[in-house]
């Protein structure tokens, strides 16, 4: 794990002329943008405009067709990039037969843990007090989302890639996401967040990336 101060780190995301094509059909691009530390960037666009695809390219799951993306100065998906990145997608990756607490411990086992964080305190923080020992499959969609958010906030990653983090959440849940993002940015983190624009975002947005089909 890298523990150097955030300011000495290379730019979290640096994208130059990024294009992604699926079967010779352009999904998005060419895109140019950077996301600095302490910044939350919002990716906007209609359904099918390539928001999720952009996040998957930056995470390193998909290979860009042209152009270049750099995550902490390295290629997406490389060891250096993965060490600093945490994702939250449409599929939350929670195991339904495990409890939220076990899921958090699993995430910490795989990704490491931010110093000074405690899974039980984090479950209370996201409003899952008393649900820590129920199997995740018995929780509601919003509670599952909150479990995934708790896992995200525990990880030491300095770059968050969040795909529709507001989906399934109630008003308090939306405030919780904004709160977690604000704390993350204040601690030197960066985030790339997609939204189809239905949710009004909190005031700390530093830049908006607009995708047009």
């Amino acid at each position: 794990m890298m523990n150097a101060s955030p300011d000495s780190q290379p730019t979290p995301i640096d994208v130059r002329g990024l294009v992604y094509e699926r079967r010779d059909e352009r999904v998005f691009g060419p895109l140019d943008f950077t996301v600095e530390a302490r910044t939350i960037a919002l990716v906007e666009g209609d359904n099918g405009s390539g928001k999720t695809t952009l996040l998957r390219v930056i995470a390193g799951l998909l290979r860009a067709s042209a152009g270049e993306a750099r995550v902490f100065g390295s290629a997406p998906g490389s060891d250096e990039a993965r060490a600093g990145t945490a994702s939250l997608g449409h599929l939350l990756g929670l195991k339904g037969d495990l409890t939220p607490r076990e899921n958090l411990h699993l995430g910490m086992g795989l990704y490491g843990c931010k110093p000074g964080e405690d899974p039980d305190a984090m479950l209370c923080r996201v409003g899952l007090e008393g649900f820590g020992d129920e199997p995740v499959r018995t929780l509601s969609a919003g509670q599952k989302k909150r479990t995934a958010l708790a896992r995200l906030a525990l990880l030491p990653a300095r770059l968050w890639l969040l795909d529709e983090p507001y989906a399934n959440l109630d008003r308090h849940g939306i405030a919780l996401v904004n709160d977690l993002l604000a704390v993350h940015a204040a601690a030197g983190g960066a985030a790339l967040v997609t939204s189809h624009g239905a949710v009004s975002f909190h005031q700390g947005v530093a830049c908006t990336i607009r995708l047009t089909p």
Partner: protein
Amino acid sequence: MAAAFRAMLQRDLLLAWRRRGDALLPVLYAVMVATLFPFALGPEHTLLARISGGVVLVTVLLSMLLSLDAVFRGDLEDGALEYLVLAPQPLALLVAARMLAYWLVTALPLIAVAPLLAYMLGLEGPAQPVLLLALLLATPLLALIGSVLTALTVGTRRSGMLLALMLLPLAVPIVIFAAGAVGAAQQGLPWVAPVAWLAAALALAVVLAPLACATALRIALDS
């Protein structure tokens, strides 16, 4: 890295424990298949004793095939696979933990029940421990090769049949060596050579299969 391996192994064993009824199904299947042979071939003792080693090996292979399809299916469906690929750990290491858990949960109960099935069919004497040894080497080999094929077919629908068609040809040498060792022991001949071949193949697969599996999973997700 060791912590990630342990977390992954613990996860899979815990998941298997929460669904412990599922682990019993391949065992019951193996018992039923092995029981069918005396009904089909008649109760002639010498014939059953001669084919017992082979019957048990093939039965165990088919039972493992039943659950092989599910090795990465659950993780693909709930998205956990993506989080494993994106984790700052060598994917091959996590995949190796997954394979180890699969072998412990699926193959160990089968190995435990196999001597009983062999005895039921009339396999006796020094061939019994040889069968056990052959199974201890052949089942992890099948689990490793099978996991690579599962990773290759993880994105496709109805992958179960495809998986069987891909795995069975690759299982032929494993069955030949394992059954050869048991047959040789039954006739009082030296049986070390085929067992050594199995062990050599297993050593190779332990190193290469997780790497191949990790690459196959990355390809499966890149679409």
